[in-house]
């Protein structure tokens, strides 16, 4: 069996434990990637509205999630 087939099999695993654990790990990774990228966008002067548009979420949502956090190596205007 090729490794691609093995991966495909795992991705579609019918064992909920395997599948759900992958979802959890992916969410953790996603949260952190989002933080890194939002911080980067803010450092480059993007507005919350621009970030929200890029993420296809509401400005309120993205602001609430990210504005309270101390910006990493960056300025904090708002």
């Amino acid at each position, binding site marked *: 069996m090729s490794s691609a087939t093995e991966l495909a099999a795992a991705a579609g695993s019918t064992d909920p434990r395997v599948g759900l654990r992958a979802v959890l*790990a992916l969410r953790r990774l996603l949260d952190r990637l989002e*933080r890194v990228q939002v911080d980067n966008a803010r450092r480059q002067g993007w507005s919350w509205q621009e970030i929200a548009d890029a993420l296809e979420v509401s400005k309120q949502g993205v602001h609430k999630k990210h504005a309270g956090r101390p910006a990493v190596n960056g300025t904090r205007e708002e």
Partner: protein
Amino acid sequence: MFERFTRRARAVVVQARDEADRLHQPRVGTEHLLLALLHDGQSLAATVLRDAGVRIDDLRSRVEQATGPGSRALDDADAAALREIGIDLAAVVARVEESFGPGALDDPPPAPRRWPWGRRYDGSRFSPRAKKVLELALREAVRLRHNHIGTEHILLGLLREGNGLAAVTLTRAGLDLVDLRRRVLDAVRTAARPAA
């Protein structure tokens, strides 16, 4: 809750924070409580762990390995789960760190908060599991009808919690948590008995 902690047990809580600092980790987890328990070699908990064959340098390197750079944010289990769906976490981390510097994906340090009772115990830094362990320590003391909470109760709490990185690390080091628990209870009983 901390009024009933012995001087040694309080020192463990403070030391746990230092252990987290040492490993550059924003959160104080069960693994830092475990390292802190071993730090004071004279404590009942440290004695039991030592007698069971635990070596602090071995345990420390295991904890560092489990929480080392690049895997601080996401642990081995996450990496394995991502591998299952064809994502190479190490490759993702490497790419992000290339652009944004080492540790870019790590959890950010928690925002500083003011605590009305001073800054000795910064509860906000303790992970939910580590807080649970301290709660369980209290419960173990109550169950044993002890008026104080000592290092032995913190260790019992760690063992009872059972799922934190402390418990995982102990298990990986070849220790049996049930056996350890029995050893602690034996030591408590021996310590309580008046010298023959």
